[in-house]
Structures are given as structure tokens and as C-alpha cells.
């Protein structure tokens, strides 16, 4: 049986302590700039905060993984190098990277620190994963959310590194790390600026008479919710649109829905998944506490040979809906 490490999100020092206290095996976080894919206002860590956070986590036996999982634009790679240097200096346990140049820099400059390949690298074949392992010494790959469990089992046989899969949280587009939808409307890049639907471009407009709410990005209305309808994130991929063949309007890309693989944990462990990742660095301490506790209990039950008793987490899901996505079947969407 794999160790089934629980990898948990933290957007602030308080969230990191919450994750540690709730039973995280490792916490992943980022610094306050474009080097990570949750470069949101008021979120993430200063260098001083990260230093203290690493000390707190290590005191409690928890690892800290630093997300450097965006792509440096030409001529701006110094920001990523500096973040890597800082992380190595203060003793983070691994870097989560997507860009080959960043991976190469870390492999050459800080070879003592583990490299994990971010989901943003979208490496989904044994050949692609082996390339990162052989050239940059990657020790773990975070798989894109497009694979079934039998496919994961097959990949595991053919790669020389650990596998991490998402088990809960935001369910993004399928070619991860390649999404340009935000860029299309706002001019800012999810993959290079670290901002999917930047808050500065988001506006919610409530119609007091009807109770309807419009969700707008960059001046474009991307969805409108009825007064009693559950809402989702203001992302283009989860907007509702009409088209000539669908005049009634529909979710063209994705629905407001979250991934929840709590029912598939035993199968994932059986397929050789080494670590389970919970999405949500942008979420609150309350989310971190409840989700980490629930999965800590579930993983411990499974490892002890008991049937996992998974808490109901639907209230924390986007649109209050959950899916097992492609992990369950390729027929998903």
C-alpha cells in the first residue's frame, strides 16, 4: 500500500497552521507574486511568514511544498529564481514546478531539494513524465485530472517517480497549464501572472427587484444566477452561453462543480497513488479545517483496514455539486 500522503492547501500562515493541526502530511503554499498560480490579492506568504510557517510545520512533522508552478515570461525568470533561492534557504521540502527552465535552474542550483511536477505541466503520458524525471530529477508528478484509475495504474508501472492526484476541490479545464481564457478577456495570464479571473476584473451585479445576480469578468457578463440558484466561481470556463445549436444557453466548457474523490480513495491507493492533493489555497481556514480533517480521517481509516467514513463536504463545493470527473469515467462531459 502506498503512503497516501495528504497534501493540503494554505493561502495564509493561519491556514497553514490550521492544515498542520488538522493532520496534513504536507502543506503547499506560495509567495506573494506571480510565481504561483494563486496570485490573488491579500493571499500568500511574505518571506518572513514563510520562514515561520516552515518552522511551525517542521516542528509538527509536516512538510512544506513551495508552489513555483507558473511559467516565467521572457526576460522575467529572475522572480522565479529568487523564489527558489528563498525556498531553498529557508528549508522547504520540495518545489512544485511547471516550467522546464525553472525546473532546470532548481535541479542545477538546489539539487538537494525535491522537485515535484505541477499539474500545470500537463504531463499525462509515461513518456512526458519520464522526460521530466530523467532531465530534472523530478521525484513526483501531479497528474492532470483527465485520467481514469486504470490509466493511472498503467502509468505508475512505467514511470520512475511518485504519483500525486487531486482528490477534492476546484475542477479545472482539461489541458491544465494551457488555459488562455482569462487572458482573452482581461489581458492577464493564468499561467504567467498566476491569476485566473483576477478579482480586479470581477464584478457581481445584483438586481434588487428580481434577486438575480450577474457574474461579470472584464466587463463581460459570463453568467446570471436566478434568485435561488447556486452560484459558482466567476471563471469563463464555468460561464453559461448560448450558441446557434444551443439557443437555450448552456455550460459550454464546464459546470460549477467540484471534484470529490472520497469514494475512490481505496482504488487510488491500489493504483499506486502516493499522495492525495486537496485544492483550495484561495479558500478559508474553515474550508481547510473541515476538508483536511475529513480526508485525514478517511485516509487513516483506509490505512488501518477500516471502511472510510467520509464526512459530507458538499456544502463546501462549487455550486454545491460534486463530481468524480474523468477518474470515474471517460464519459464525463
Amino acid at each position, binding site marked *: 500500500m502506498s503512503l497516501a500522503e495528504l497534501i493540503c492547501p494554505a493561502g495564509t500562515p493561519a491556514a497553514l497552521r490550521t492544515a498542520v493541526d488538522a493532520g496534513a502530511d504536507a502543506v503547499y503554499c506560495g509567495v506573494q507574486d506571480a510565481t504561483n498560480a494563486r496570485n490573488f*490579492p*491579500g493571499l500568500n506568504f511574505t518571506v518572513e511568514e514563510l520562514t515561520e510557517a516552515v518552522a511551525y510545520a517542521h516542528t509538527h512533522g509536516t512538510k512544506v511544498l513551495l508552489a513555483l508552478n507558473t511559467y516565467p515570461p521572457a526576460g522575467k525568470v529572475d522572480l522565479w529564481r529568487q523564489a527558489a533561492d528563498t525556498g531553498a534557504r529557508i528549508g522547504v521540502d520540495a518545489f512544485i514546478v511547471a516550467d522546464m527552465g525553472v525546473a532546470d535552474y532548481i535541479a542545477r542550483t538546489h539539487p538537494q531539494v525535491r522537485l515535484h511536477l505541477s499539474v500545470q505541466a500537463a504531463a499525462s503520458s509515461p513518456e512526458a513524465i519520464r522526460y521530466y524525471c530523467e532531465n530534472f530529477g523530478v521525484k513526483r508528478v501531479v497528474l492532470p485530472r483527465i485520467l481514469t484509475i486504470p490509466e493511472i495504474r498503467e502509468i505508475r508501472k512505467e514511470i520512475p517517480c511518485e504519483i500525486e492526484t487531486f482528490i477534492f476541490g476546484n475542477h479545472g479545464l482539461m489541458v491544465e497549464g494551457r488555459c488562455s481564457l482569462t487572458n482573452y478577456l482581461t489581458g492577464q495570464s493564468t499561467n504567467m501572472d498566476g491569476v485566473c479571473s483576477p478579482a*480586479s476584473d470581477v464584478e457581481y*451585479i445584483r438586481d434588487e427587484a428580481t434577486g438575480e445576480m450577474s457574474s461579470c469578468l472584464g466587463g463581460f457578463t459570463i453568467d*446570471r444566477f436566478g434568485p435561488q440558484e447556486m452560484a459558482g466561481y466567476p471563471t469563463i470556463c464555468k460561464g*453559461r452561453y448560448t450558441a446557434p445549436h444551443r439557443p437555450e444557453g*448552456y455550460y459550454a466548457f464546464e459546470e460549477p462543480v467540484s471534484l470529490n474523490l472520497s469514494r475512490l480513495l481505496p482504488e487510488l491507493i491500489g493504483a499506486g497513488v502516493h499522495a492525495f492533493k486537496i485544492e483550495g489555497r484561495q479558500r*478559508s*481556514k474553515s474550508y481547510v479545517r473541515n476538508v483536511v480533517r475529513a480526508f485525514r480521517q478517511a485516509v487513516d481509516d483506509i490505512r488501518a483496514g477500516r471502511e472510510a467514513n467520509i464526512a459530507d463536504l458538499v456544502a463546501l463545493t462549487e455550486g*454545491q455539486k460534486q463530481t468524480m470527473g474523468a477518474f470515474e469515467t471517460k464519459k464525463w462531459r
Partner: protein
Amino acid sequence: MKGKASSVAQPIAGADGNRVDLQHGRTPGNHENPMAGSAGWASRLPGHRGLARIACTMVQPLLTRTVRKIARNHTSLFARLGPYREADFLIDPVELPFALHLRPDPDNLTFCAVPRDAAPPVTATIQGPFMLLLQLIDADEDGDAAFFSRALTITGDTEAVVRLRNALDDVDGSIAEETAGLFGRPGQAILKRLRRSYHTENTGI
């Protein structure tokens, strides 16, 4: 989703010049929001304006003491607000006869009860049931989940709200309990009772 829209689509112009329409209205399969329609009932009561002004006067000393104590105990909160320290927020607990005007500027801290019809122009408004707002301040509830459920409404500058949320979420301990503690045991007893009532209302336990 296969649900059919119940109302007419509103066309908007796509960035590529093509027509991008969106549908709106309720879609089958979505959950009910029990809080919908509860906003602002107090403002419809007879004589509500006078009531609101009296209530504002009564609670103001409490608010002033509360915000000063929080600012003193949690100075790191202001760094996460960045330039939005000088922003004006209207926090609107829907059951109360007044709203709260917050300007989290450490050099000119403002936290005032204001009648809704006399509220100043603000950067952003955060509206929801009082206990939900209290739970959010203490990170006992998740803001995104409250937003998804439509119990929480935000309007205005979204970045301002996100910064405030992240700043408050990084506060260790309970702001509500600190506030209740200002009033000794009676304050703590009231908070405990409010929380118990909220828990029962939401869980049935």
C-alpha cells in the same frame, strides 16, 4: 447541464466580435437557498428610520471599542489589505435595522453603524445574515461556500472584498470572542447563545 432556461437570454458582445449570449434564470436541479428573499425586512417595518437611528446611537460605543481592540491586537491584518486600507466597506447584516460602515485604515479607523438609507458611498458591500457574517469573520464558515449558496452577496470592488476576506482569515483566534470578552460574562453568554441558535438552525442539532 441540460436544463432549459426559464427566461430570455441577454446578448452581449464577445471580444472577438461574435455574439456571445448567456441564458439566465433558474435551472432544474439546483438547490434552494433558504436565505433568499430575507434581505432588508427590517427596513420595511413601520418607523424603521427612527428605529435605525436609535439603534445606531446605542451600538456605536460598542463598535468603537471593538474595532480599536481588534486593530491593536491584529496589526498584521492591515498589510494584507494593501491599498484597500483606505477603502470603505458596507457590511450589511440583513436582519439588523442598520448596516456597518468600515474603513480599515489604521491611521483613521472607522467602524460606524449607519441607517441603510444614510450609508455613505462605499467601495464594496457585503450582505448576509448577521450570524453568517460573524462566522465568516471568525473563519468558522467558508466565504466561498456562503457565496455559492447565495446566502452571502457582494457588490462593488471585488478585489477589496477578497483582500478583506484574506486579511480576516489570517487572524488567529476569535474576533467575536474578543468582542464578547469586552463585556465580560454577559457578553460571552450572549455570544454562546447566538452560536448555539445558529448551529441548531443550520444543522437541526
